[in-house]
């Protein structure tokens, strides 16, 4: 089943001024329910614009946005309800924190949903757990925390709304490798436990390959390709031409294969590569 479908989306910024710029040009994409979907593209490819269409922050000039088969703009007055169903975590979300304590900040979304105090408390605790926030930090001011911890608080703020679709725009930007792994790990365990739909926007092929089931590639406001990791990474030369490329390890394996080492083609993570090479060594 498709969780989100966007059909023929057109969007232009600063219409009718000298700064007019078409961000999306007849883009049609869909995202499978119950999966982690990757959305990848260069800076300026229209990814961030596209995700703002998905929860109704931007309204397309033309085209339709369907959430589980139903247009989100059917009743424009109820667009807020759509935002609770489609949670969107912006890039560098730590700059949106404002409350006195992390706990209150995470509770901002659920509170806006009109939930009762007990339910809010449960959601805050469980969201904090997913992102690996220690409970002692919840009573602290978000301005006292480190960058990585702030990021987690912001992430938890959206997770606590328990949306059916969770969209994350570059959730690991600016974090160190350990921080990246922890954030992505948290997202994965969250998705597995709730079996909802997740969309990760990124420009790192490594991250997308390691954590996503499907990949959608945008290029200059248009859909470039979409499919499983294997299908998309088949097109190595085109992706390289676009400046996106394929994961380093996939390229490395391809070079080994070119040199006559018999390995599988569909290797996208270092762990897979290690076990494949070990197995190959065992075979010889």
């Amino acid at each position: 089943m498709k969780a989100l479908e966007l059909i023929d989306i057109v969007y232009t910024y600063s219409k009718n001024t000298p700064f007019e710029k078409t961000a999306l040009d007849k883009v049609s994409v869909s995202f499978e329910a119950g999966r982690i979907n990757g959305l990848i593209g260069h800076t300026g490819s229209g990814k961030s614009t596209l995700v703002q269409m998905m929860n109704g922050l931007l309204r397309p000039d033309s085209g339709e946005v369907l959430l589980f088969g139903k247009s989100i703009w059917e009743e424009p007055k109820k667009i807020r309800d759509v935002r609770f169903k489609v949670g969107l975590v912006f890039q560098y979300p730590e700059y949106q924190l404002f409350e006195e304590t992390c706990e209150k900040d995470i509770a901002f979304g659920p509170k806006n949903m009109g939930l009762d105090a007990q339910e809010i408390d449960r959601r805050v605790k469980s969201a904090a757990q997913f992102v690996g926030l220690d409970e002692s930090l919840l009573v602290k001011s978000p301005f006292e925390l480190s960058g990585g911890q702030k990021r987690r608080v912001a992430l938890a703020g959206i997770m606590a709304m328990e949306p059916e679709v969770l969209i994350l725009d570059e959730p690991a930007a600016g974090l160190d490798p350990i921080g990246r792994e922890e954030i992505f790990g948290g997202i994965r365990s969250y998705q597995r436990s709730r079996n909802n739909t997740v969309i990760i926007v990124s420009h790192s092929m490594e991250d997308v390959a390691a954590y996503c089931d499907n990949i959608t590639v945008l290029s200059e406001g248009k859909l470039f390709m979409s499919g499983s990791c294997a299908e998309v990474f088949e097109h190595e030369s085109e992706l390289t031409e676009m400046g996106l490329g394929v994961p380093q390890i996939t390229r490395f394996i391809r070079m080994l294969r070119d040199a006559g080492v018999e390995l599988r083609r569909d290797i996208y993570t270092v762990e897979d590569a290690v076990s494949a090479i070990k197995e190959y060594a065992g075979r010889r």
Partner: protein
Amino acid sequence: MIKDITLGQFFPGDSLLHRADPRMKIITALIYIVFVFVAKATLAYLFVILFTLFLVFISRLRFRIILKALKPVIFIMVFTAFFNIFWTRGEGEPLFSYGIIRIYKEGIWFAVMMVLRVACVLAGSCVLLTYTTSPIALTDGLERLLAPLKKIHLPVHEFSMMMTIALRFIPTLVEETDKIMSAQKARGADFSSGGIIKRAKALLPVLIPLFASSFRRASELATAMECRCYRGDKGRTRMTTLRYSMTDLALLLLLLFFGAGVILINIFLPHILSFGI
């Protein structure tokens, strides 16, 4: 959306006005504003309106953009018009009276004039200055014009640097505000419903992060400037020095012509089209 505010935004182009020296543009804008207020006769008003349209024409900006600049001051215009209509006592019979309310034709006349005057001043100064001059050129021009004041120890350079920085950060802050608002909307914040108190409260989740990031930016900028050895005005040279050209002379003559026109009409043709007022 917040981005739609265009008052004080630069639109790049290559018209006569774009090419003119910012110092000359500041001078001519002052001349322009003074003479808009000098205009008294009806015909002089017409002349002002035509001249303003002419300025818009030679700036090669789209007319829509100019109208957009007027949008934020519509309230002020309506307010002035309102007072002029109801508070002006004219001679002769009122056009309309009900209780203490009396409307005279003079009132309506003044209201129309005031609104046109405000619209012309705003449109003209936008076209002469902010829409056709980049903020950097503008503050640079201002600093040069005010340079003589350095002799009496006024910190002209520091003042203009502050202005440059402030102007530079307006779009950044607008963009940031937009971003934070979107982020809070994504968490269900509601900025457009409820009474005035509820709305003001709803802005808190936007203002606090905005303040925090402004301070962060300010301190980063200060560090960056120190790293590049910025020490204020002393010994500072410029990459580009301003020079007056024929364009500037033409612009000055044009505005002097405008001023002379207004005065001549005021003196010699005061009663044409004045409808007996």
